[in-house]
């Protein structure tokens, strides 16, 4: 298994019609890993969609920035400047995000804030 790859950055207008594009690209990247099955990829697609929907609501005239990083043991998606905590509006969205990915963190790094979603990969050929 290879070491971590450089991140893939996506930046699109922060508008509802672009959320679908982001989940399609993230889904395609995640699906290219043999150690993530279809169900996990679909879970991630929905979680990313939820995070992007909340980020778009917070920055209606800005840009939506998402970075995907392939760690050896995980697929990591950062949604920049997104939500920091569950709110009344984001209650259902956060319930879904927490249920669908393995880890959810708010990361403050280099002056930016990101919602980080991690899907831990299963070993492709068992633990042996």
């Amino acid at each position, binding site marked *: 298994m290879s070491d971590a790859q450089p991140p893939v950055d996506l930046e699109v207008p922060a508008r509802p019609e672009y959320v*679908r594009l982001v989940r399609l690209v993230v889904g395609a990247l995640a699906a290219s890993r043999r150690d993530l099955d279809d169900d996990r990829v679909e879970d991630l697609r929905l979680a990313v*969609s939820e995070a992007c*929907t909340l980020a778009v609501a917070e920055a209606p005239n800005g840009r939506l920035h998402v970075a995907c990083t392939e760690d050896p043991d995980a697929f990591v998606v950062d949604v920049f400047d997104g939500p920091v905590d569950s709110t009344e509006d984001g209650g259902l969205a956060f319930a879904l995000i927490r*249920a669908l990915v393995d880890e959810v963190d708010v990361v403050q790094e280099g002056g930016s804030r990101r919602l980080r979603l991690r899907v831990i990969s299963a070993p492709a050929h068992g633990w042996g």
Partner: protein
Amino acid sequence: MDLRLETSDRDGATVLSAHGEIDVATAPQLRQQIVELASESSAPLVIDLEGVDFLDSTGLGVLVSGLKRFRTLGSDVLLVATRPRILKVFEITGLTQVFSIHPTVEDAVSAASGPRP
């Protein structure tokens, strides 16, 4: 992919069939259709989600507000869903306890014509 919506009348119920993806971009279209149907008739509404490939919390919010709207009118909203990906969204959010979810349109229409809880 756009969201395509079709309505028909069936045995005293209105059937709204959705095809495509329900997300933050397309949910307003669904909301508008439900509001229009509620203003036209108080017949129970069956929303068929069998043609829906993707459903997020925005779509769930629209369905919940539609349910409230119809119940305020003394009517009801029933859903048709069997796809595991779609049912999973209802299960995670606990909305399987809120909605009456049926495997076929026939079942939902039949349940709609029976006594309401």
